[in-house]
């Protein structure tokens, strides 16, 4: 039976009509890490897409050569903060998927360091996601998921897997790390899909 603590106001933040339910606006970029920060040299970096038909690997230069675009988007963290109109640069997943054939409808994103998160393929394609290298005009630093992270801004930001190393397609929507431990399988901020 918690009571309100006199004088404690908790999160600082502003309300704004562009925010999904339960979010507050921040202007900085909080760092949340559940483990040691992987340090990956772009010379050793590789991105692999695995399907039931085999796999395709891109090096750092090969992936970027597919074409980088500018993105300006809002990002929503399940921990209630939102950043509006954040500038990013990355390769659209649609470009990458031109080399991929699969009957599977779901994807598990894998990160350097072992983190995983699941996303339906329809939430990744048709302009909905990127492999991102830059944020706020700077190359992504390791604390924020650099050298590259998945960017799926229309879902809660835990789905935008940091330190991305590959995507593996799957026939069922198997839960990734946080999804196995209490978080929602899908994660739509506008439906407040935060937990089980």
């Amino acid at each position: 039976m918690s009571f309100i603590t006199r004088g404690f106001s908790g999160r600082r933040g502003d309300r704004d009509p562009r925010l999904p339910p339960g979010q507050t606006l921040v202007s900085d970029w909080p760092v949340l890490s559940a483990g040691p920060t992987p340090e990956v040299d772009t010379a050793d970096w590789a991105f692999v897409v695995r399907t039931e038909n085999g796999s395709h690997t891109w090096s750092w230069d090969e992936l970027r050569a597919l074409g980088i675009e500018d993105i300006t988007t809002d990002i929503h963290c399940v921990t209630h903060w939102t950043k509006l109109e954040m500038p990013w640069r990355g390769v659209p997943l649609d470009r990458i998927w031109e080399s991929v054939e699969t009957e599977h409808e779901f994807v598990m994103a894998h990160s350097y360091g072992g983190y995983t998160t699941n996303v339906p393929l329809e939430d990744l394609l048709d302009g909905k996601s990127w492999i991102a290298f830059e944020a706020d005009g700077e190359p992504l630093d390791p604390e924020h998921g650099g050298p590259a992270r998945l960017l799926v801004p229309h879902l809660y930001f835990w789905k935008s897997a940091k330190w991305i190393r590959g995507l593996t397609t799957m026939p069922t929507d198997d839960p990734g790390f946080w999804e196995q431990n209490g978080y929602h399988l899908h994660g739509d901020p506008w439906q407040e899909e935060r937990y089980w």
Partner: protein
Amino acid sequence: MTKLDGNVLAGRLTDALGWDATAADARCATCGAHGAIAVAVVYLTAMGAVARCPHCDSVLATFVESDGGRVWFGMPGISALEVTH
């Protein structure tokens, strides 16, 4: 990112199990090392608390708490915990 140790999980463990398991011996399901939960490497984030094996870094346990007070205690990487209360 700040690393802590399993001592900081005492409150969460007591809420989950009914007793303070920080001195209890736990075995890492990934590498087989074992020791007191108090010695695990712990990261506290707004997403949740993650306890990792100090030997191999695999995730031993997680705590997630929703705003409404729902709590999930995950044990993806503990093969067994000695009950010594």
